[in-house]
């Protein structure tokens, strides 16, 4: 999903910086409050960030002979919402842009939007809707993380199609980019969803009090999940 350095012409790279900026600002504000009011959640925040580091560094072979990587930002989105996830995504994307020439500084705004904001926002909304509907927690986490991954790549395709609509128009361009990004991503999204659901299970087992403190799970649900795993 990384749009490479220089591959977004003006005004698109400026536009995506402007779109992403408010999320980063709100995210920093939320982080500040988290540090002050819910210090016990900080290790979980570190885990969410570390997950983005690990998963986004793994370039996996996928369908139709190309390689792509999962994003790992779905977990941060579920746990802390899209704004804090945007800050986590930003850190990783800067690391990759500076040290790996993977992505770029001018395309940072667009890449933060797809990987740090759009994906996690989808994960956050699915998780909220799923828990409200009383769906199975791990199935909900799986769906949220898998779709966060997939949506990230769909958004990248939209971003590129907007900047390069070609002669044939936006939708033709979108389907060309989506064929490269989104289709490739389906199996990776499934693997990512499964891995994050498993990690969520370990968090429920080891540190459920953080999840209840963040209003992610009720105490009765935690009890039910822990009994089911015993």
């Amino acid at each position: 999903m990384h749009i490479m350095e220089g591959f977004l012409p003006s005004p698109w790279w400026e536009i995506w910086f402007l779109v992403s900026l408010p999320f980063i600002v709100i995210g920093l504000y939320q982080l500040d409050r988290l540090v002050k009011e819910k210090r016990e959640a900080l290790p979980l925040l570190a885990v969410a960030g570390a997950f983005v580091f690990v998963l986004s560094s793994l370039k996996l072979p996928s369908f139709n002979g190309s390689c792509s990587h999962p994003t790992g930002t779905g977990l941060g989105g579920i746990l802390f919402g899209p704004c804090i996830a945007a800050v986590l995504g930003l850190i990783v994307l800067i690391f990759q842009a500076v040290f790996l020439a993977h992505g770029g500084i001018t395309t940072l705004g667009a890449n933060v939007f797809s990987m740090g904001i759009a994906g996690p926002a989808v994960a956050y909304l699915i998780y909220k809707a799923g828990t409200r509907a009383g769906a199975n927690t791990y199935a909900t986490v799986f769906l949220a993380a898998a779709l966060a991954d997939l949506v990230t790549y769909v958004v990248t395709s939209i971003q590129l199609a907007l900047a390069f609509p070609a002669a044939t128009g936006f939708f033709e361009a979108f389907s060309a980019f989506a064929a490269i990004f989104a289709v490739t991503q389906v199996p990776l999204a499934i693997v990512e969803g499964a891995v994050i659901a498993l990690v969520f299970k370990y968090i429920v087992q080891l540190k459920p009090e953080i999840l209840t403190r963040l209003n992610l799970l009720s105490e009765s649900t935690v009890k039910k999940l822990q009994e089911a795993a015993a």
Partner: protein
Amino acid sequence: MKYRMEIAVAAIIIIFAAVFLVQDAAIRASGEEAWGGADGEAAALIEASGYEPWTESFWVPPSGEIESLLFALQAAIGAVIIGYIFGYWHGSRKTA
């Protein structure tokens, strides 16, 4: 069952790997080169339309080895943090 989810995740990963091996065998048999990055493919598609990137990365890893070193480093940093915190939680639960 206690490890139902672990088994399900392992099964998904094994299927994923098996699909790769089958596809790879088919691609090799046809003599094509494959398994490049999707990011690069998108960039090639854009360049094919005549677009020239207006700026370049100011530093590029000088070789594939250095690049994979840095990617491995990125994964290692994350893995250390995850292992440390889960280990800490696990240990403090046992002694509590």
